[in-house]
């Protein structure tokens, strides 16, 4: 028997287990999946917890409910991958040999990267919303916050779901309007980018929305430290921004196990071929989701498209064929804009998000890069689709792994 091991049972690993248990010849292959946790979190829900829109129960389920019964689920912490000898070393001593390995260990926040960020004010007036704990602590803070300077901040790129901090700003605006205290809150959006977003057309659309909602923007801000005494963030150029409440997205990094294994780059992401998803250094290791260093969004939708491509390439690899399936960087993200509206963007390595209709050219029903209620329902429906289709590897009707250019208005 040969053994395929999947590291990480989050979004990407779970999808791969569901694809492969049906596709591999099970007389020849066993499949193992390893995760240190017992719970699967729907991370997009972290955005909604602070505003009391979702409850913890809406976003947490048991990992084992999503793993097929003919796949072995191992609940252990991975210490390192010994790639030259094809085995996994678990914390505590066990070893697991593999013939084929899929890395899906994701990315997480590393607030300790910035001086003072995880200081005296951490989870008192300085919060993240990229972890369950951070999101809940922030919810409790917001429930009785009296107002002041709210600063929403991105430390450095890349981050998971790069639109999430903008969505946070829009939802905060709505939240304070509903609580009839918007006039007591100044909202400032601070980013290391030169504008609200990375791609020109969506930046223009999003900056317009920021202005409309009276949210100030500070761009090109490269944070050097959080000053806990003065309650300011300070950048390398010397600029200082005061806050009463700081909601920051700390540096995102791959798991430290990559550093221990000598497999990661300076942010612990694994160098990966952006088309085939094979690791650059080891032919029998493939990488998917937030753990890769490919220049695509770190998003669940991206992991979903990658999973279809990777499944094909794993089958090619086993048959000694050319890895002919090629990922184009396709991402599809809803952006909550508050007041029960949302935008939708659809893009890939070569095409930036533009106006148009989705998924049917000229018909929609979803509008690209334009606020609508329909898009908001799309975003909320995403949670149902995530639990019931995405994780199980069921294709979403009409949405293909590689991007479709029809119905999009380029230039």
């Amino acid at each position, binding site marked *: 028997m040969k053994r395929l091991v999947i590291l990480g049972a989050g979004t990407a690993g779970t999808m791969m287990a569901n694809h492969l248990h049906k596709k591999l010849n099970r007389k020849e292959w066993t499949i193992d999946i390893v995760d240190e946790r017992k719970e699967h979190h729907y991370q997009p829900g972290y955005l909604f917890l602070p505003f009391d829109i979702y409850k913890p129960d809406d976003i947490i389920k048991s990992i084992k409910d999503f793993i097929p019964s003919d796949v072995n689920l191992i609940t252990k912490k991975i210490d390192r991958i010994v790639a030259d000898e094809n085995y996994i070393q678990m914390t505590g001593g066990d070893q697991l040999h593999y013939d084929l390995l899929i890395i899906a260990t994701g990315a997480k926040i590393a607030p300790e990267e910035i001086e003072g960020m995880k200081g005296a004010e951490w989870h008192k007036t300085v919060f993240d919303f990229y972890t369950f704990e951070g999101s809940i602590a922030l919810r409790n803070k917001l429930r009785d916050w009296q107002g002041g300077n709210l600063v929403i901040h991105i430390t*450095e*790129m*890349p981050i998971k779901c*790069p639109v999430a901090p903008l969505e946070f700003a829009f939802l905060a605006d709505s939240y304070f309007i509903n609580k009839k205290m918007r006039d007591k809150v100044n909202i400032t959006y601070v980013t*290391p*980018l*030169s504008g609200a*977003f*990375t*791609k020109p057309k969506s930046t223009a659309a999003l900056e317009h929305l920021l202005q409309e909602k009276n949210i100030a923007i500070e761009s*090109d801000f*490269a944070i*050097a430290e959080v000053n806990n005494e003065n309650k300011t963030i300070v950048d*390398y*150029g010397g600029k200082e921004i005061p806050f009463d409440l700081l909601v920051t997205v700390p540096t995102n990094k791959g798991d430290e196990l990559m550093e221990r294994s000598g497999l990661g780059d*300076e*942010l612990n992401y694994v160098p990966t071929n952006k088309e085939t998803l094979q690791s650059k250094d080891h032919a029998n290791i493939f990488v998917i989701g937030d753990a890769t*260093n490919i*220049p*695509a*969004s*770190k998003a669940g939708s991206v992991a979903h498209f990658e999973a279809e491509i990777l499944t094909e390439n794993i089958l090619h690899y086993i048959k000694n064929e050319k890895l002919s399936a090629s990922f184009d960087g396709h*991402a599809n993200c809803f952006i909550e804009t508050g007041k029960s509206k949302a935008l939708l963007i659809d*893009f890939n390595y070569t095409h930036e998000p533009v106006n148009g209709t989705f998924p049917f050219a000229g018909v929609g029903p979803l509008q690209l890069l334009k606020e609508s209620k329909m898009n908001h329902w799309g975003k909320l429906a995403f949670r149902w689709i995530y639990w019931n289709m995405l994780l199980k590897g069921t294709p979403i009707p009409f949405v293909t792994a590689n991007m479709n250019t029809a119905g999009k208005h380029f230039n």
Partner: protein
Amino acid sequence: MEKTIANKTITVNEEGYLTNFAEWNKEVGEALAKENHIDLTNKHWQVIDYIQDEFKKESPLSIRKIGKSGVVDIKEFYSLFPSGPLKTATKIAGVPKPASCI
């Protein structure tokens, strides 16, 4: 679009980044630096060399990476290329603006 600089015609995108690294030479670099109000010192050139090496290796650039390069630390990088150092430095070096990922 085309642009003439240091007696040479180069092709740049709408943000002023060279679209063909082969069209870059030291004089072009000097002239682009002037446009950005920077006088290039030895230290600037070391950073530019590093950026070009990484570009040739197709290895993605970031401020963090430059800070760990051993050439400069982040503070120095900011003092050499004030406000948006990575964007300015890559423009002068003739390589594409780093896609800060999306």
